């Protein structure tokens, strides 16, 4: 199950994107180049297909079509998302073009689905022409209309995005009532929702992995307090028996982030979107993230798309230049290219440089030294 190709037009920073996607992709670019916006395409599709979501909701949570459309969009200003996928051995394509009407409502201009090259949906169709109101919804969100391509709908629904913010895991009050919070707000609730046998097995595997980064950690367990709020307890080695139990609010940021990441890796088989997984982690741990992802991908077939600024993470010799998407801001938009297609990067790699050494200088701001002058008197 994987997304094999992505085409975009007029989506946020991007006037035009046309890139193949591998099982493991690293998105590399300067700050504010649009790495999160690129990942947001997949979240957008997930939000449309989600039972609690839909097209209008997905657009509204992003503040409307005008916020989604590239500021540099030309006369043909429809926003276009076109993805190709492999699902259970079948090739699928899904294309959505949309804009807004005079009332600023999002309107589908075109929606097509094809399986193995055979067209299963082509909108607007006769029904849409008779009742244009139908174009305020996609067929992804209509059970009666998407019977022929339910696999695609289910695939989108399962896409997971993870950008754990440790403070949100600790602040259980703030995150109560949330479901599938991408920032880890309902992380502990997600654990509670997991079947006990699966939960225990996963926690065991996570503790074994966490021990590498946090050697004092002996055990992890999940329980609820008197108010029913779930808590994660960790037993850390201490010379007094039972003295080393700590609740999640005492865990370090790095422990919580790594814990969340490891859980995310084990939870589900659909594409996983990660934002800067290196945050708060020791460089020696970060270096092994690509290796974990490669093994995971080989074992479960799971696709992982992640953004990163980390030289440690990108220094893994197993990373191929075809697995790196380079985001380069220009005056008008951000261009996205596969690093292997950049001749100069290819030459540097042939000359023995690592991906990190060859690619990261492309993403550095041109006058970054000026930042050091910030401390000077005006």
């Amino acid at each position: 199950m994987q997304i094999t190709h992505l085409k975009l037009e007029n989506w946020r920073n991007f006037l035009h994107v046309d890139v193949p996607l591998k099982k493991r992709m690293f998105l590399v670019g300067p700050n504010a180049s649009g790495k999160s916006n690129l990942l947001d395409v997949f979240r957008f599709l997930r939000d449309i297909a989600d039972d609690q979501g839909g097209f209008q909701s997905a657009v509204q949570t992003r503040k409307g079509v005008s916020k989604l459309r590239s500021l540099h969009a030309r006369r043909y200003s429809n926003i276009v998302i076109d993805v190709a996928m492999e699902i259970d051995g079948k090739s699928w394509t899904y294309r959505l073009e949309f804009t807004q009407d005079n009332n600023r409502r999002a309107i589908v201009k075109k929606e097509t689905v094809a399986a193995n090259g055979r067209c299963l949906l082509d909108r607007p169709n006769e029904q849409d022409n008779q009742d244009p109101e139908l174009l305020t919804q996609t067929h992804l969100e209509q059970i009666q209309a998407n019977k022929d391509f339910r696999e695609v709908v289910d695939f989108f629904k399962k896409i997971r995005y993870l950008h754990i913010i440790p403070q949100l895991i600790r602040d259980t009050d703030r995150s109560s009532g949330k479901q599938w919070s991408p920032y880890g707000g309902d992380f502990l609730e997600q654990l509670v929702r997991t079947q006990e046998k699966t939960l225990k097995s996963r926690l065991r595997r996570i503790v074994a992995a966490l021990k590498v980064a946090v050697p004092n950690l002996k055990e992890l367990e999940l329980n609820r307090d008197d108010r029913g709020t779930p808590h994660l307890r960790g037993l850390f080695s201490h010379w007094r028996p039972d003295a080393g139990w700590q609740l999640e609010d005492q865990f370090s940021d790095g422990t919580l982030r790594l814990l969340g990441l490891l859980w995310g890796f084990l939870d589900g088989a659909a594409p996983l979107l990660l934002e800067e997984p290196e945050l708060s982690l020791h460089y020696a741990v970060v270096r092994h993230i690509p290796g974990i992802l490669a093994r995971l991908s080989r074992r479960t077939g799971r696709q992982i798309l992640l953004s990163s600024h980390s030289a440690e993470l990108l220094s893994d010799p197993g990373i191929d230049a075809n697995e790196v998407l380079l985001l380069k801001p220009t005056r008008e938009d951000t261009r996205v290219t596969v690093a292997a297609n950049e001749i100069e990067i290819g030459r540097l790699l042939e000359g023995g440089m690592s991906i990190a050494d060859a690619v990261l200088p492309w993403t550095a701001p041109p006058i970054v030294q000026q930042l050091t002058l910030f401390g000077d008197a005006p």
Partner: protein
Amino acid sequence: MNSLPVNVAVEGNSDEALARALLRECELPTGVVYVQKGKDNLDKKLKAFNQAANHAPWLVLRDLDRDAACAPELWRYCLRNGPHTWFCESRFTPPNPGCWRTENA
């Protein structure tokens, strides 16, 4: 400035400013700047920069120090295990570009 951007490889941050100033003086746009952590790191990657120079213009700044009597000799020494084709050309530079820059500031 309609010329091709010139990519740059230097030993450290202070050399980057020097390289930018040189290119500005020559009215050439600066491309990607590869700042290495010292001379040894730069030397290790010279082969790769030389390879890339087959495709685009590059400027590599390296202190001569006492590693060789002159720039061409240093260049031969640095690329001694590399390919037979050199895409970079060596130019005579002062033994220590940092000093040169300070003197000309």
